[in-house]
């Protein structure tokens, strides 16, 4: 067969031509230096005035568009020389963290004391967020004490309460396990439910964890739970122990609503709570999960 000359470069093809009417979505114009400075001042004043709080440098930097990040120092220097922003001051702590405040609301000596507290808040937030995002773990309350050993325990509680009230740190949430142990997480990086599940695991009562998870699935979706689900790392159940733990769960009177099903053809093992899911429906839904879905791709 003849070979034809082909010079078409697919990458150069124009595939679409468009109409001329303007987009219905209005584009947001990039803020001017003046507008950025005004926004910084407003943010610092609001934190100081409404929450009596210092503003961490990171919160200020976040107000500066990416395209102007290199001009932050010059931008702040301009503000320092501008009478309109004479109340906006910066303070650097011993550990090198920078905070801003408004002298209209916070006096300089007061700011030094507050900066220590603000520094603690920053450390707490950074630690909790990193644990939630990078390690996907809860932060035990004890870890916070180690983080700021100079701060008394009761002060930490107050600091955490303040953090909850400040929108900039309100993502730091607390969850209490059934044994009373307290943990923290950032709901920017971890859902409340996931934190709840992790808190269940910390109690090291796998029977209770299994029962709680099974009840959740039977109630919410509803569906039975394949026992293989509990082999996921987050549950910290050694696979070799899973069968014994499931058997133990089924024997405990407090988990009397938890029932087991075995799929007749695959042998898949499922648990459900008959508090929320009827026996025959558990069987139907197990069959769908075990063979139905795969047979209906």
């Amino acid at each position, binding site marked *: *067969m*003849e*070979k*034809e000359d*082909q010079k*078409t470069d*697919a990458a150069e*093809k*124009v*595939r*679409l*031509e*468009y*109409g*001329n*009417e*303007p*987009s*219905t*979505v209005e*584009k947001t114009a990039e803020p001017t230096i003046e507008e950025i400075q005004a926004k910084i001042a407003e943010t610092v004043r609001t934190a100081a005035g409404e929450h009596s709080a210092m503003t961490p440098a990171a919160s200020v930097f976040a107000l500066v568009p990416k395209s102007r990040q290199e001009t932050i120092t010059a931008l702040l220097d301009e503000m320092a020389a501008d009478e309109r922003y004479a109340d906006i001051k910066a303070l650097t702590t011993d550990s090198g963290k920078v905070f801003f405040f408004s002298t209209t609301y916070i006096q300089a000596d007061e700011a030094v004391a507050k900066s220590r507290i603000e520094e603690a808040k920053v450390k707490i937030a950074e630690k909790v967020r990193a644990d*939630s995002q990078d390690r*996907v773990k809860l932060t035990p309350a004890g870890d916070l004490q180690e983080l700021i050993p100079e701060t008394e325990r009761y002060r930490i509680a107050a600091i955490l309460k303040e953090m909850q009230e400040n929108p900039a740190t309100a993502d730091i949430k607390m969850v209490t396990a059934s044994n009373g142990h307290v943990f923290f997480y950032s709901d920017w*990086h*971890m*859902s*409340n*439910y*996931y934190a*709840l*599940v992790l808190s269940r695991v910390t109690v090291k009562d796998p029977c209770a964890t299994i029962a709680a998870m099974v009840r959740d*699935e039977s109630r*919410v*979706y*509803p*569906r039975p739970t394949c026992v293989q689900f509990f082999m*996921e790392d*987050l549950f910290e159940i050694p696979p070799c122990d899973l069968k014994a733990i499931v058997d133990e769960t089924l024997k405990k009177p407090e988990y009397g609503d938890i029932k087991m099903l075995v799929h007749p053809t695959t042998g898949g093992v499922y648990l459900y709570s008959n508090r929320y899911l*009827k*026996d*025959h*429906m558990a*069987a*139907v*839904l197990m*069959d*769908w*999960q075990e*063979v*139905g*879905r795969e*047979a*209906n*791709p």
Partner: protein
Amino acid sequence: MGGWTGKVLRVDLTTGVISKESTDKYKPYLGGTGLAYKVLWDEVPPGTDAWDPANRIIFGVGPLTGTGAPLSGRVSVTSLWPMHPESLPATGHMGGHWGPELKYAGYDSLIIQGKAASPVWIYIKDDVVEIRDAGKMWGNGIYRANAEIMNIMGPEAHVAAIGQCGENLVRGSNVMCDRSHSAGGVGSVMGSKNLKAIGIIGTGALKVEASKSAWKDLVHYQHTILGANSGGVVPNTLQSWQPDGYYGGTRWTAAKGLFWGAASPPVETGDCTADDLNSIGLRTFKGYADFGPGVGDKHTVKIQGCHGCPIRCHIATDVPALEQLGVSRYQVNTCNGNSSGSGFTIGITSRSENNITASQYGVALCDDFGWWSDYGLAQADFKWLAQHVLTAEECTAAGIDPVNAGKTPYQYRLTAAEYAKLPWAKFTGSDFVGKMDFVKAVMIQIKDNRMADGTPATWEKMQAGQPATLGAYIAVGAGRLEKLWPELAIQHQENKATPSAINYVKMGHIKHHFTESSDTVQAAALLNMMYNRDPMCHTHTNYTGNGLPLALQNEIFNELFGPFEGGNAIDAELAAPDFLPTPMNKAKAVFAKMCFLYMELHNSLTLCNYTLPGWASPLKSRNYRGERNLEAMMYSAVTGDAKTAQQLEDTGLRILTLFRADTARRMNEKDMRNKHDLMPEYAFHAHSGAGTLDHADWEVAKDMFYEECGWDKTTGLPTQATYDRLGLSDVAAVMAGAGLLP
């Protein structure tokens, strides 16, 4: 108008005439299946057989195809259906890039009619369309056809081709494009026309009426609504980032620590959070989902997809063991395509190394031969015919001499010589390579499609009692084979031992997302009764399988399409002990109707019904609400013809109603309710693993569904008023003339 190119290409293989005609008369049907139904209605008279030269095969694309609208790479290939015993109309669907290329070449669809005197292929490069000799390709597989045509046209060509199955008139044969995208069931129509392949290069552009920025904004908006393949809007496993802790039941399988292990270097799917639009293509890790942990992830190179698709659902694998079996270690396919060959084996542990090797070995053979799995019906029937030992009672009931009790149907039905041609010891044995030998032997018999005397197999010869090969009996299709071998009805209708294993519905076709989807029993049954093949509808399962709690699913549906009184669309539970769903109600009828309409719209616009509708979204910020107007917004922006969702849904109903009329006209049947809209009796028998239909409730379901569509309850036929309202008065006149107006 944007979107459409304005021209439909027609190739008459009998006369060699190539013509281009205006798209205008097809625009009320959008494109794709809608356009094709109109062509069949206008041009192919009742009584025409699927393999008659007068039959058309229509490669239908729509106004959205090729525009870059997310999920718009689809092609609907519509024709009279060779698998259907009465050659009623149906559609195969393929993705890839072939459809968009047809648009860039300047065509809103391709209609092929007639029959070439000798094997040909069609060359399309923009305005240049030629019928060329395919003599050297004929007899070879799809891979060779692709290579030959790309050698001629260049590497950027997109090729749709049939293999030996299509050539040899195997009814379960496909058309395949872009390596792994197949339109099932229609390959033999091309074969009957002596048409091997269609190669396309398009260098033109499509017009989008919206401005560039408006279009970009809309596409971005659609991306924010999309979840994963099959409609999942929450991750399959519990993930720390999902705001409400929702998880499970979806194909959103990406996770930290989960890799495309055969990529170089391996690619971590990672946290594909709902707001990270750059990781949408990683969400659906189908290799892991389908082949299992430690196997699927190990062998996945990447997940491929169609033109304009951010989702991706085709699994590209690297299985080195395949080289020992004589085929390439690199294969691509998805879903049932991955079991089309391996379905002819038994005793392979699922989710094992042997399983993926067998699967991909089958892919290598089937995708070259152009074999279509018929959604697994052929393999299910094969296993039953090979393994079920007939009892004396079954023999008597099926009209077989009871002396054959104790034999399998194949042992009784095949001649001894034909039975002995297959290595049955390898089928039942434990040696893996032997099992693959058996698969190959069966596949070769299927693609050759011969009578025992070596002549081409035909239905007429089989009906006359001439012996055929086992492969030919598979190639003839389940509907015809049941007529020839009545005992197959035991498997199709009466398999009480394992009723959940039954997968036949009626008229030669299999169930597809049927009553085993226990939350939408009546809607699924309605979908499975309507079409002349399996319904190929995923609207219902994509919505109910989105992973959200059932209560939230009903809440969202009621907001979009309600309010409803008298119950929800989606069932929370089936009643004991018979697994009966809650009685049919208004919400269920509307749900069923919308599932039909959106499937017709997707297959006509074209958009992917394997992921849409977008009624729900992964966004907590939207409280998981999606967008009913998604299709209408895309259509309006591209064409400039502003339509609301409700207006577009009416277009969907027009398409469905035309299909209904055409089916009735070809059957010459006024009582569609009782003669076409059949349900297998096993659907009314209670068994675990599926919902059960109740006879009285099923009649109510049909009543309510017909009423929603504006069809007559007594006959199940569209009424004059409905035809008129939908702009189908000319169809009504024809139906009236045929005595088919209720």
